């Protein structure tokens, strides 16, 4: 069997009359030509690329939902509690920033956005509107529940990425600016989400009735949505 493979050694390295202008250079993967060369580092493993893709996808979906929740809540909440306008706007603006951060990362790294986009849009708007008409406390309990899940979720991602960084550095590989940047971006966003959580608690989220039922229901919904968005 091995003879056919050794025969080639000294001969003819693919020099031939080629009717296809681009095939003499054989790129090994999509848009290699657009990549910055990084000759000394290894390709990311399939598991690493899958993790990064699903992390960006689920984060984009989550931030989409967050902007829509606040969009739906704000007019209702502000109508009866005008003093909350600056806070709602501040939180919305941060969510809009997060959303556009992940939008550009998804486009840049050519990750497929979630196929459930329209579903999340409807669900998040309904959740925001529904909790808002239940009153300020319920609206804040919604924020509390969502941000608790999201905070944990971002923490898990940071942990995974730091583990990956450690592994790569141990084997002498370069992490690269994109992943370094991603780690600090997720950390910053996580801190902002936890800040939203504090605002919600300061604004009587815990006084929502029935608080436990409402938050555990929303948190279960978030976990389900995260699970689906990581995959679909």
């Amino acid at each position: 069997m091995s003879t056919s493979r050794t025969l080639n050694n000294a001969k003819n390295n693919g020099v031939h009359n080629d009717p296809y202008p681009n095939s003499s250079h054989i790129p090994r993967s999509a848009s290699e030509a657009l990549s910055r060369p990084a000759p000394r580092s290894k390709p990311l493993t399939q598991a690493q690329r899958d993790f990064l893709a699903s992390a960006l996808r689920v984060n984009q979906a989550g931030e989409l939902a967050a902007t829509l929740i606040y969009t739906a809540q704000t007019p209702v909440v502000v109508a009866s509690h005008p003093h909350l306008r600056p806070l709602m706007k501040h939180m919305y603006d941060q969510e809009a920033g997060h959303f556009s951060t992940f939008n550009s990362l998804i486009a840049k790294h050519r990750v497929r956005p979630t196929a459930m986009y329209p579903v999340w849009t409807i669900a998040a708007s309904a959740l925001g509107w529904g909790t808002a008409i239940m009153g300020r406390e319920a609206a804040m309990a919604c924020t509390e529940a969502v941000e608790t899940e999201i905070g944990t979720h971002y923490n898990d991602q940071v942990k995974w990425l730091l583990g990956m960084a450690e592994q790569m550095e141990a084997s002498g590989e370069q992490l690269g600016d994109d992943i370094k940047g991603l780690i600090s971006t997720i950390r910053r966003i996580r801190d902002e989400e936890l800040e939203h959580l504090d605002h919600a608690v300061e604004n009587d989220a815990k006084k929502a009735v029935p608080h436990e039922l409402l938050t555990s229901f929303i948190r279960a919904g978030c976990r389900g949505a995260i699970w689906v968005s990581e995959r679909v």
Partner: protein
Amino acid sequence: MAAPSTILRRLRPISARGNLLARTYHSYDHPPPPGPFSTTESTILSASLPHIPSHGFTLTSLSLGAKDAGYIDASTNLFPQGPFALVHYHLLTQRLGLAQKKEVLEADEGIGAKVKKLTWERLMGNKEIVHRWQEALALMAQPSNVPTSLKELAAQSDEIWFLSGDISVDTSWYTKRASLSTIYAATELFMTTDKSPDYIDTREFLDRRFKDVQFVGGVVGSVSQWVGFTASAGLNVLRSKGVRV
């Protein structure tokens, strides 16, 4: 000496994972993961391409290519999927070649115009073998080859939108790729029967398909708005009508 089947298994292209949508993170800091063909396989396939116009997408082309590249005939055993390897290699190299179309990519034009031009460039990549393309289509339609063929088609549409500078990451991401894939597949089939000079008829056919879909600020936009028609939009419409919700 290992059993031939073991060797074959080891040499089989790391077949791209079945899922059509399994497009994954593209890194700019790390080299791309290995493609579906090993260096040896690529060398043989690349040497086989010049034989396709006269011998088609067949084992004959493959073994002539192997001989040209300095391998013995039997090395076509490297390709358990048979002549489909030639089709796959053609699709792959043509797709990756799109990134080299500098005159299209660097032109000062909108996304829609670039999508059209790249699609045309890709069709012209079939020019030399178009009289053999129906053989390729038949191979692509075999059940075991369908996943790879569809995956290549999807990857090609993704490549064209990406290279044209499209950065939309909402539901239109799907509608754009799906409609471009459909248009491309229809036009490619039309081209196999086109006898007009310089493929004028194919060109017109393609233009009509693009007009049907109106990539530039037209129906694709509204289709995606329709698909994504949302509670949020509903709420905002109600609010704009003065309904206090």
